[in-house]
């Protein structure tokens, strides 16, 4: 186990190096001259030169790459070009707001999609199954934007059940007052694709021999589904949840933009609009690292769920 973890950590090194190279060269070759962007439309050559020197842009590219690597490992990306705020501070102060809405979304959608998928898998081919699946396909064809626009208008503006947007300093007030509407909307939207997927996992399992054996010894269908199929279907379900996990960091950027939630996703979007390169670079690098660790954690989780899986 320890050997496995060590080897996986070792394998992250080339990937991380690739991520750093990719980010560096994308911004270096396609990003234009940061000094020109910073100085604005009317700037003298001296001003541009001063900015260029202060950012280290007068150095050769390998020195700049060295500075970039050092920034990543010392968690010091300097200041945002636009707000002069420390980039690491931006990251840490925006993270709680994001997690306040994404973690409830993830928990809700998984705990709702599994029973619904079991229900339709149990009634497979029947009217209920076909109607629910047709609704799922149609629901998936409508843009997430439409759900947010209409949901915010109807429940926030017309009916006034929830605040239209906003965010406060108290965690509980945020969770109880401001977060529910975005959470409900996102859960409803992700329910359709999740249900469809989990239904197919359950149906795949029901084709197995052990299901036939269980039926032959006289178990009822609900018992088979709950006691035998569910534990086995949890393996692909968990795989899918692991794929969703990195999304808890920036996956809710649309919700954050619409509901003015000061989270990571909204911050990146603002940074893109301001051409605030340090913020974009730092967020991309850190989230890549976080994604790698989440994937490792997910692989370790499989072992807990399915003892047959050998970690080699």
């Amino acid at each position, binding site marked *: 186990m320890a050997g496995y973890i060590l080897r996986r950590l070792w394998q992250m090194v080339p990937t991380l190096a690739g991520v750093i190279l990719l980010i560096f060269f994308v911004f270096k070759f396609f*990003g234009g001259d940061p000094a020109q962007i910073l100085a604005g439309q009317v700037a003298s050559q001296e001003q541009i030169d001063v900015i260029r020197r202060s950012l280290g842009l007068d150095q050769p590219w390998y020195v700049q790459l060295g500075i970039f690597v050092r920034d990543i490992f010392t968690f010091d990306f300097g200041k945002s070009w636009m707000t002069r705020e420390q980039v690491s501070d931006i990251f840490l102060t925006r993270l709680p707001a994001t997690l306040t809405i994404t973690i409830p979304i993830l928990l809700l959608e998984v705990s709702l999609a599994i029973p619904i998928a079991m229900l339709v898998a149990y009634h497979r081919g029947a009217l209920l199954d076909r109607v629910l699946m047709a609704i799922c*396909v149609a629901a998936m064809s409508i843009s997430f*934007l*439409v759900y947010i*626009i*209409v949901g915010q208008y109807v429940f926030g503006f017309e009916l006034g059940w929830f605040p239209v947007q906003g965010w406060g300093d108290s965690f509980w007030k945020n969770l109880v007052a401001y977060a529910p509407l975005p959470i409900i909307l996102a859960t409803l939207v992700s329910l359709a694709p999740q249900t469809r997927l989990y239904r197919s996992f359950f149906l795949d399992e029901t084709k197995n021999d052990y299901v036939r054996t269980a039926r032959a010894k006289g178990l009822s269908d609900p018992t088979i589904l709950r006691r035998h199929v569910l534990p086995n279907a949890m393996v692909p379900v968990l795989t899918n949840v692991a794929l969703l996990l990195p999304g808890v960091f920036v996956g809710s950027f649309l919700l954050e933009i619409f509901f003015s939630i000061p989270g990571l996703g909204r911050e990146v979007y603002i940074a893109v609009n301001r051409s605030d390169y340090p913020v974009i670079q730092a967020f991309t690098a850190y989230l890549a690292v976080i994604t790698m660790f989440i994937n490792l954690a997910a692989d370790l989780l499989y072992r807990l769920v399915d003892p047959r899986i050998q970690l080699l």
Partner: protein
Amino acid sequence: MAAILDITPENAWVALGRRLQQDRAGAISLAIVALYLFMILLAAVGYLAGGWSEEVGVPYANPAFLGDRPNLEAALAQRAKRQRGHVPDLSAVDPLAPKYGEWEKRTEQLKTTQRERTLTLPWGGDQFGRDVLAKAIKGSQVSIAVGVFAALFATLIGTLLGALAGFYGRWVSDFLEWVYNVFTSIPTILLVFALAAVLRSGPLGQVFASGIWMVVIILAVTGWTGMYRLVRAEYMKHRSREYVLAAQAIGASAASRMFVHILPNVSHVILVQLSLLVVAFIKVEVILSFLGLGVPIDMVSWGTMLAEAQTELIIGKWWQLAAATVFMAIFLTAFSMLTDSLRDALDPKLR
């Protein structure tokens, strides 16, 4: 015996067409998709919705079926126009006053035409009085074109790299797996945002200032990984099959084996994945255009329509939202169902 040998195998694509026809849901969705393609073809050559950007109606013109609805916004705009003539005389303090006469003269030299603005439009008007129905048709053209072109480019990248990795294995595969790991360890939306940032403000910003190509490139560069994985797995399966070894024995080159012999045998996997990509990319394009990172402002897509719809909804003008949503939902539903039918028709196990 001779009779049996005379049977020519059915062409795979003819068989696909036959199977799609037998599948009723598949046939209907195929018809809808074909209808859309016909519509955007007409829009592309200008026969349909060519004048989407002309202000043909009053601001927020009512839909024809709601002609009697009070239109406060249009009335306000009319009043503002009438009052423009009675500006109080400020020439004593206005530093620009001496120039007004000269500007008046210059204005008169320009030819302007007054257009009669209609009070109602078939499916209503937007804030400038543009026809929402024409916008939805033109928007379909842009959104679908972005989705299709981006999916084609992503397929090209993914298939080429996947074929190389799966066919050659060894260090080629190791290197491409590394590239794949790098791309997939960065959350897609961050990669999209980063590319949008550099392509907009970098030196290429001028090149992509107009047209759909910036979004297409962003989507293709970030979206090829799934296709790569699938194609690589298929090529690994096929490269040591007998027909490939036979081709090698008669002297087929590596490139010929890869693209003449193996490619047709994995094309069904690519085709299904391609249509899944079209749906996914259209959804992303709509979001990017909504955020102002997608198509340029002189174009209309379903995303830019939704961006306007957000504020319109508050003053009760729901028709632009409805038009964009309905056009998009029907196309994506039909296309998704067509993909499902395609997968069923192409899956050799189900035959």
